């Protein structure tokens, strides 16, 4: 992975949004009072400095550092996949691989649930897709009132690095669509790095799992789309693979 120096980035406004450099904590990303430190960056005199390890993005003088590894930090609006670990008098506690469990209040499920029948609606060990609607110091509140959220049944859940999620989704969902085309499986990616794979039979799901894990392990590789295509061919998977966007090697922020 090539490291572009800051000057070449600011010299070309057009490619600025796409140019990425890997920075380490304390490293000057760019100098100049016109630049604004955003997420993962801070100001030190004239310098904008990386406040964590990751890829520096400079877009319209706005500097941020996007992590490439590490734990998942929930954010409002994220879609996450988790498992019920406890039932309280007014909601469910969900393990999603974060620092704390998420709380799903009984009022945030799509239908009325009697407080005596909560386990019948969602029981220990059952899995859900939920939306983060508040992040507090003591925990995360989630909801599944909206369409597309709820209990999941069948299929399997696998874990990838949360920072690999954008690559697994691909630009405008291209990577997920490619997996779906090749295996016929539905692939739902939670921003917490949990991926739900559900297909006609387990063989197909296992094939999809292999591809997802391959993407996760090669997330920073250049030309990933081509490699995944090759892998799908090698696995002898055919299917109505949708048209793939030609250049798809950049991680997109999914937010």
């Amino acid at each position, binding site marked *: 992975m090539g490291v572009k120096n800051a000057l070449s980035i600011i010299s070309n406004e057009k490619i600025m949004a796409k140019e990425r450099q890997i920075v380490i904590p304390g490293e000057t990303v760019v100098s100049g009072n016109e630049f604004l430190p955003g997420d993962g960056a801070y100001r030190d005199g004239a310098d904008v400095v990386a406040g964590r390890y990751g890829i520096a993005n400079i877009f319209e003088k706005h500097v941020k550092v996007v992590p490439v590894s590490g734990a998942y930090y929930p954010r409002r609006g994220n879609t996450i996949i988790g*498992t019920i*670990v406890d039932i309280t008098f007014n909601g469910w506690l969900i*393990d999603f691989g974060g*620092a*704390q*469990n998420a709380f799903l209040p009984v009022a945030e499920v799509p239908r009325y649930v009697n407080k005596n029948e909560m386990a019948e609606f969602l029981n220990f*060990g*059952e*899995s859900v897709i939920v939306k983060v609607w508040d992040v507090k110091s003591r925990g995360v509140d989630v909801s599944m009132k909206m369409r597309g959220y709820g209990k*999941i*049944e*069948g*299929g*399997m*859940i696998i874990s990838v690095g949360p920072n690999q999620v954008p690559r697994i989704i691909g630009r405008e969902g291209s990577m997920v669509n490619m997996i779906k085309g090749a295996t016929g499986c539905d692939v739902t990616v939670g921003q917490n790095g949990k991926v739900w794979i559900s297909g006609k039979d*387990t*063989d197909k*799901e*296992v094939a999809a*799992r*292999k591809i997802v894990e391959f993407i996760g392990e090669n997330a920073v590789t250049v030309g990933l789309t081509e490699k995944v295509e090759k892998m799908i061919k090698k696995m002898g998977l055919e299917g109505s693979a949708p048209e793939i966007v030609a250049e798809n090697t950049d991680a997109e922020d999914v937010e």
Partner: protein
Amino acid sequence: MGKFVMPNLQKEKIVGYLKEGKRLDGRTPLDYRDIVVEENISPSASSSVRVKFGKTEVLAGVHLALATPYPDSPDAGTFMTSAELHPMASQQFDIGRPGINAIELSRVIDRGIRESGFIDFKKLCIKEGERVWQVFVDIFAVNDDGNLLDVAGLAALIALGKARMPVYNKKDDAVEHDFEKKGLPLDKKAMSFNITLHKVGDSIVTDVSKEEEEVSDYRVSIAVADNDGKARITAMQKGKPGAISSEDMESILKIVEDKWTELFPKVKEYVFG
């Protein structure tokens, strides 16, 4: 909090797929993962080794020290196995004194080695009733992705197989900071190694992954040695709450014999090669 929680659907998937004779990582029920061995990771130890089964990784080393023999066996060296299931390896492990899992693991491995007669303890006697060698095997888990017991067991065997005797200074009754060319007094023919089987749903599985281990009903660890080309069991341990039906016991013994025949030449190569 932070403890691993297995979703119900995952358990159903693992169990259901095993009914078809398949595993989620592409293996068949009795397949092992790829084994990687790296020797001499710490040159100042008598021996040291890194062993990986897939992503499960264990380090082990052997150390020899001078000791006084036990009164009931004044002419025999002594032996101790200890294991650290360090929080480095898994979020399920805690810091501090060894927990019951670490104690059980080291005792199961210790028994397998001790009872097989692999180490010739009589030859570790320097002066009867006064001076013997004490053999330490230390095991350190670096990453837990299932079946730590067998990975640690193999690491311990390789470390013993590769161990060098320290130079003994008779005059000062002390150990020099140097090693002899010769290794530990081992009875190569007596070596046993550990095979752990798990009951997952209706199936019996070897070399479990982390998620299979998480949902298994019970495990049986069996240390098997060579008796003129036939398997000979030298130590056993049933773990976890489930109970073994008599039919399962029969198939477990059959599987262990087959697996032992398949793996024994490879293990010998790792330990003595």
